[in-house]
């Protein structure tokens, strides 16, 4: 299956409440919603954030907004007032998710040409 960086299919915004992170993932095009609803699963997101060992990852579907809301528990190292990291809010973490590559069956993106994978800058994934 061809792997596409999520960045080419969606944009995203993260927000925090205490030690809980939410990432709103918004499809760039309407036709990406269905394939992402099958493949952008809580397990996929858990794997992307494996080093942070989330205690729970939930996905909420918002078809009218062409969006998914992911809620990750206990991934902010205590949150903005407790984290040792530079970004205790987790504001940058939407781009950690967007930089993950997601494998989609060929033809899954619909009639139009799928976005061409481009090299993603930087480490680690």
């Amino acid at each position, binding site marked *: 299956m061809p792997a596409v960086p999520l960045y080419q299919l969606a944009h995203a915004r993260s927000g925090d409440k205490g030690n809980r992170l939410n990432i709103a993932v918004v499809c760039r095009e309407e036709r990406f919603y269905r394939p992402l609803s099958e493949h952008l699963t809580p397990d996929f997101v858990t794997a992307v954030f494996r080093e942070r060992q989330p205690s729970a990852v939930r996905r909420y579907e918002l078809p009218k907004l062409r969006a998914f809301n992911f809620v990750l528990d206990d991934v902010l190292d205590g949150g903005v007032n407790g984290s040792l990291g530079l970004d205790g809010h987790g504001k940058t973490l939407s781009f950690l998710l967007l930089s993950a590559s997601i494998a989609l069956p060929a033809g899954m993106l619909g009639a139009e040409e799928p976005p061409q994978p481009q090299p993603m800058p930087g*480490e680690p994934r």
Partner: protein
Amino acid sequence: MAQQVWIGAAAGFAGDRADASGPLIEALARHDGPRFLIFETLAERTLALAQLDRLADPSRGEVPALKRLLMPALAPCIAAGIRIVGNFGGANPRGAAAKIRQWGKELGWPEIKIAVVEGDDLRSKLTAAEFARFESDGDLLRGEPEIVAANAYLGAEAIAEALSRGADIVVTGRVADPALVLGPLKHSFGWADDDWDRLAAGVLAGHLLECGSQVTGGYFADPGIKDVPGMDTLGYPLAEVERDGSFVVTKPVGTGGLVDRRTVTEQILYEIHDPAAYLTPDVVLDLTDVEIEEIGRDRVSVKGARGHAAPNTLKATICIDGGLLAEAEISYTGPNARARAGLAIETVTKRMARFHPALQIRADLIGSVSVFGDSAGAMLAAATPVSGNADLRVRFAAETTDGAAAECLLDEVEALYCAGPAGGGGVRKRLTPRLRSTSCLIARDLVSPQVSMLEVP
């Protein structure tokens, strides 16, 4: 009763741009009917810091950015009949109101009607044991530590009452951020306390406005992918709200930024958990059926919010002393920089383990793995090392109540200048007092919001 209400949001946090209010006031001044300008300035920690200010000086305790943000807006708003609602009272809404009164006098408006909303401060209402019992999120309060600040999120009712009593300016402490918008809407439209769908629509409007430019192109731009014109002159948001609760999000003509389906969608879900149940003091918002539509340039219509009965408890944020955050950085660049930076981390970690073995130290490698990394260092350890001529900055961080341990870390990083790997430079070090925060759920009957008008002397 009004048919349409205009509300602008001039600040989404205390550090926001002070010149944001100008174009909003100009736009609001061109309309008739009820018009409001809101300022949201109270992040979780801001109020606790304000509480520490107040302890040091009883006349202080307002949000420190109050003067910077409000002064440019004060006279133009009063002149145009635009009413101001802000949570910039921080830990001392009454003190903030007195300052605003004084500035009003200096600007030639001595008789501004200023309302103060209080009752969010819970420190005298609950014992340490009760706070511990009501903690909803972790167990920071189990040992009954000294509480620096404890504030309930008040709802829109007190703000609506203040406006009904004629306030030109409403000064609050902790309120639910969307209440800054819902309060003016309840007042203007006379929405009932159990008109859940209308209240939900007002909360949604407030939610979209409360972070200021985050709905008008801020926190959004990604060059070549999501381009935003005029980031240096971002327009802040305006909502045109109808009686039925539907509304349009827009921004002042001639400003930078943009309002479209994408900016609104990102902000609708910002800091949301279950989109079917966003809990606020006034209503539970269900936004799963919300529909948004681009109806013109920088104009997005939002409708379809549904509401359910408000929860029986109010959320409160509790802050306690959090010790010290020690941070120090040093740079390594050029050939083999990755190995030299790694040796710096190893050296400091070994020495600190000798002097303060209990201290947990985080190491970041800025330029390779930093903000994405975890505090245990698993991602940094697993990353493919950058090669070639890198430009790296090593950052060490630790939190402790032991000042000597904190100082020791800073000293050890500075010592890398001479005793560390080749070519280390640019040491910066900092100790910051910390406040830890947690949440409680408090029964409503323990919280009594109060509205009072500041007397005109």
